[in-house]
């Protein structure tokens, strides 16, 4: 049976997330998962099962995430995972889209007085193993002909601990991850992100190869969130809009027109529910990692194409 039937039968969506990266996915003190990636999981769950809380969050490390997905332990992996050729082709996964356009950055204590990554010759670098950043790092230092010493680490939490203790001079990972990590520091101001972004890290949710129905569900849920922002559908006004608008695209998304839901194997309100749980893409972004949060990420590349960003959902039609 396809994943979608499994999920429906189970009544729960198994969603792979990080073991804890504030803003993207982390349990709060009540054990409730919160974050940008979490919101996507909830949206999918709402779309498929009608309940944004019908999600089992499976914490995975950089190392365990792919086996968790491949072995069927999770139905979808929403764990700031970079879309790369080999993961798509060789590891046989299906990236359904990009929910955050990112790049690898470096964070150093201000006190070190470093202003460029090129000055890091001989530095000790904390790096999460099993990630693209680990490979980029090797390439970057080799290309610039400078040396470094890697300190391989399993989780963001440990990296943070090592970095703060001074066991490494630099912490490198996705720039968004760096910002999120820095936000949890006691004195975030003592640490700076270096200007270099040494790679492209398009982060997005992924599913197993070969189950296209399921891939479509996740892909279009993500697109629904993005489109919703584009068309101004928010969690606040969605009920209103669901009554019918004069924009046929919105109507198709919200199920008042056409049979898109049916084509996906869902009901007509699937996208409406998905948008309702956490809001549209913009709302999710603003709530979890946006400029008003401690993490304070600007939209940048992640603005709608209409605003000069890269977010560009294919049409619902």
């Amino acid at each position, binding site marked *: 049976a396809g994943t979608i039937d499994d999920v429906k039968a189970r009544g729960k969506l198994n969603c792979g997330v990080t073991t804890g990266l504030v803003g993207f996915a982390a349990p709060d003190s009540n054990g409730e998962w919160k974050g940008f990636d979490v919101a996507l999981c909830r949206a999918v769950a709402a779309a498929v099962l009608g309940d944004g809380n019908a999600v089992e969050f499976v914490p995975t490390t*950089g*190392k365990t995430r*792919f*086996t968790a997905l*491949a072995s069927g332990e999770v139905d979808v992996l929403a764990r700031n995972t970079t879309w790369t050729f080999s993961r798509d082709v*060789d*590891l*046989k996964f299906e990236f359904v889209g990009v929910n955050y356009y990112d790049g690898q950055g470096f964070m150093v204590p201000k*006190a*070190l007085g470093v202003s460029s990554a090129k000055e*890091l*010759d*001989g*530095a*000790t670098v904390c790096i999460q*193993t*099993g990630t693209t950043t*680990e*490979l980029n*790092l*090797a*390439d970057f*230092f*080799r290309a610039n002909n400078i040396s*470094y*010493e*890697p*300190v*391989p*680490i*399993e989780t963001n939490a440990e990296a943070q*601990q*090592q970095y703060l*203790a*001074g*066991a*490494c*001079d630099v912490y490198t990972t996705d720039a968004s991850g760096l910002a999120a990590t820095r936000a949890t520091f006691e004195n975030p101001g003592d640490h700076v992100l270096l200007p270099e972004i040494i790679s492209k890290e398009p982060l997005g949710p992924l599913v*197993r*190869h*070969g189950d296209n129905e399921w891939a479509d569900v996740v892909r279009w849920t993500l697109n629904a969130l993005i489109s919703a922002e584009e068309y101004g559908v928010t969690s606040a006004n969605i009920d209103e809009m669901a009554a019918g608008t004069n924009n046929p695209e919105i109507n198709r998304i919200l199920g008042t027109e056409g049979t898109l839901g049916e084509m996906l194997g869902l009901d007509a309100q699937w996208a409406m529910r998905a948008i309702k749980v956490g809001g549209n893409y913009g709302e999710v972004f603003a709530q979890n990692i946006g400029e008003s949060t401690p993490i304070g990420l600007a939209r940048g590349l992640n603005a709608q194409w209409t605003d000069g960003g890269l977010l560009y959902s294919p049409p619902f039609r």
Partner: protein
Amino acid sequence: MTTLSDPPTQQFRLSMLVYDTRYRSLTFQALAALLLALSIFYLGSNLISNLRAAGLNISFEFLGAPAGYDINQTLVEYDSQSSHARAAVVGVLNTLVVAVLACVTATIFGVLAGVLRLSNNWLVSKLMAFYVEIFRNIPVLIWIIIIFTIMTAVLPAPSAFRGAEPDASMVMGSFAFTNRGIYTPAPVWGPGSMVVVLTFVASIVAIIAYRKYTTKLLYDTGRLLPVFWPSIALFFLPTILMFFIMGKPVTLDVPELKGFNFQGGIKVGGPLIALWFALSIYTGAFIAENVRAGIQAVSKGQTEAAAALGLRSGRIMSLVILPQALRVIIPPLISQYLNITKNSSLAIAVGYADITATLGGITLNQTGRAIECVLLLMLFYLTISLCISAFMNVYNNAIKLKER
């Protein structure tokens, strides 16, 4: 009575498969073989269909591809362009390094604690009992993490050594204890240093020869020469003399804070130290128990008999008690060594680049070749443990006390 010498040949009946001892065991074994084959087939077919469904295949070609990642402790030449196989070799060597180091120190800790636990000093023996109980009853993973945390959270970062009035300073001006590891001076072998080294090796040989000679002299003539002080003298004097004669050819390269880190000297990385120390102190507690049991296994009568023959306590220890106690101690000691090797796989908790971390960790992850990597990993540990137990069997047979 008849003359028939063989039991009458019976007609074969099906029930004989179960009730006849001749067939019974064959029947059961056939059944077992069938079950085994069935389960292998079941698991195998699941595996194949799962792999096909996921579009994967089993292949070890990835081992030849460039690894792409760097490793911080490499005993053989390695960079990110080397193959995964080479990364695995680096991991194997790192595993062996930490295992061997931990075996040595665990033995020292264990023997010390085991002997001291038998001390008639109340405080010391209680202290050792405390050590043994505390370390045996808390998981080794927790110890590794605790010691690693001490390494990273308590020791100063290299930057603390910087500045006019640094927060930390080097011990004796040449040892730096930092949270990235310990930096010690490294010897620099100048011209002529070979001579010094050779002298040192020669004096070690001389010590062994001298000890052999004293025993032989005793056996031949009954004259017992002093052993301890001459050994000490032989150990130090020739080498030191030669060192000065050759004009101090060996100099020390003292680590110095340059840039982000200390440069020069020898660095023993923090993860290595944490793992090494945790494994040795944890296993040391077990070895201490073995040592104590071994010494206690030699009956009091042996000591008394030796004393009654006029032997002094030092000699009783070395001639009578230790040779017997060692027979009891060494077999469990070897299985503790095996445990150390297996537990060294916990390196993964502190980021030490052993085989589990390279082949079973990063390589597995970057290539997605889970089955292949885990298989290779198990194969490696299995080989080591089979070698150790083969060695143990040989040893056990060699030391077996002759009995009637």
